[in-house]
């Protein structure tokens, strides 16, 4: 199983991975590259990763989600490389017998991704600058605290 891609994410493929007659609720989450009022003219984000650890960590996270929501199916893709504003960097699809478990599994995966999956992003800005940023979009020049 590979959870990483350098191409645009095809949501249909993820939906097909978890679709089943016994699963009546499907929840999809897309995280997209943003240039909102809090960003300084972001044109794209370059994503990089510790690839083998991403694969291992996502394998563990999706297994945990299925344990929390028995019978659920979970599919995840994280895109790496240069991603322009408006395109998805991550897609998560969770399907379960009922909507509550589908929402729960989907939410669990994205929250654990944010906390555990070793991916980094460098914002490319309209003024030509490039800045490493943390999960909240703040520059990572100050020393982070250890977890």
């Amino acid at each position, binding site marked *: 199983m590979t959870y990483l891609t350098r191409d645009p994410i095809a949501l249909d493929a993820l939906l097909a991975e978890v679709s089943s007659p016994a699963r009546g609720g499907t929840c999809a989450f897309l*995280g997209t590259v943003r240039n909102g009022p809090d960003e300084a003219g972001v044109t794209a984000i370059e994503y*990089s*990763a*510790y690839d*083998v*650890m*991403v694969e*291992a*960590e996502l394998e563990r996270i999706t297994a945990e989600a299925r344990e929390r929501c028995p019978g659920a199916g979970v599919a995840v893709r*994280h895109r790496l490389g240069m991603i322009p504003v408006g395109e998805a*960097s*991550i897609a998560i699809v969770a399907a379960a017998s009922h909507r509550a478990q589908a929402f729960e599994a989907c939410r669990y995966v*994205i929250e654990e*991704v*944010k*906390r*555990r*999956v*070793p*991916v*980094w*992003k*460098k914002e490319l800005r309209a003024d030509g600058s490039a800045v*490493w*940023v*943390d*999960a909240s979009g703040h520059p*990572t020049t100050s*020393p*982070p*605290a*250890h*977890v």
Partner: protein
Amino acid sequence: MPFAPPSGTIRVRFFARYAELVGRAEAAVSVPLPATVGDVVRRVREQLPGACDIPERPLTAVNLRHVKLDASVRDGDEVALLPPIAGG
């Protein structure tokens, strides 16, 4: 013969901003055993040019799992120094 403590060679990986600081993606670091991840980080910061700008207590992983700095390391382990995670 003088007693020589055993030593281990650790493969240290750098990513994102930390890789830019040290100008490389990995290094082999020798440490006297027993040793912890914290010992490896200290040795990296002392020995590699540019590594003094890596925090004293960075996020770390050993063999693809997150660990704290007091985790022990063995000869042949892969220790990764991880900048603040920004996935998703």
